[in-house]
């Protein structure tokens, strides 16, 4: 019986935590934190996802194999993102190196 009770308690606690995190992320997004806005919202989303995975999806007490599967899929996402963005984020380098050697900052506000 205690197992049954505790499972329900955990689920409800997790749910409350998720709602609090949601409130937090909406509140944070309404303030201008510059670049931090994005970092904060992504961090909170990650925390929410981790909580869902660990408790609603029982990764917390799964076999090692399931944990390995989760880790592998995350690693593959990292591969997809890192190597694709390695292209996108270095495309401009071409015009720096290849364009001309006399790159000088232009004071745009004269």
């Amino acid at each position, binding site marked *: 019986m205690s197992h049954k009770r505790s499972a329900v308690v955990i689920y409800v606690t997790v749910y409350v935590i998720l709602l609090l995190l949601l409130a937090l992320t909406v509140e944070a997004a309404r303030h201008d934190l510059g670049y931090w806005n994005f970092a904060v919202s992504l961090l909170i989303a990650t925390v929410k996802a981790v909580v*869902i995975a660990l408790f609603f999806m029982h990764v917390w007490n799964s076999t090692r194999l399931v944990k390995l599967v989760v880790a592998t899929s995350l690693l593959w996402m990292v591969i997809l993102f890192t190597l694709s963005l390695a292209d996108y984020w270095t495309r401009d380098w071409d015009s720096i190196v290849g364009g001309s050697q006399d790159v000088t900052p232009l004071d745009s506000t004269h």
Partner: protein
Amino acid sequence: MSGETQAPALSPLAHQFDDLTQQNEADDLGMWLFLCTELMFFGGMFLAYTIYRTRDEATFAAASAKLELLWGTVNTVVLLTSSLTMALAVHAAEVRQRRKLIMLLLGTMVLGTAFLSIKFMEYYHKYVHELMPLAGLPFKWDGTSPGHAEMFFDLYFAMTGIHALHMIIGLGIMLVLLVKATRGGLLGDFSGPVRVTGLYWHFVDMVWVFLFPLLYLIGAR
């Protein structure tokens, strides 16, 4: 996978397995592997989003501000709640509480339907405000870079649309589960299908947890 554990006979154990532990672990592993593929599937779209957003963050923020944050937040609450009811439904199935299982499955389905209804209402609003750049519909953008704003809405509809499609599939599976549950199935050792459907449902919830800040919150300030 969810159907695999439904042996035709009275035994919960399918013929290819030796015992229930093996069967349950196989079911869970199978579902997790399927979720891996789902993750990579959404990963492609998240990558496209990242690339186009870093190209023009300001326009993406401005376009995001056109989404209805209130409804987005309500929908997040709805979906998180449905995850709770789903988790409780799995628990009810495992401890053989048939009435509870039926009620919680129904509750999850109601919440899922509510989410979709709100989503489609939002779509309709976008259509009315000419912010639905699909199939040649008019797209009106008074700010700068209409092209990049259009890309935001393209991604918005593609990502939320495919997410909604996953929810519809989930609701369909739950309908099957509901029928089985009303006939007295899915309890105790037979609860495998509820468990793996739960995994799927939580995953769909998790995708939304990321879609919400990426689509709704970047223009909130």
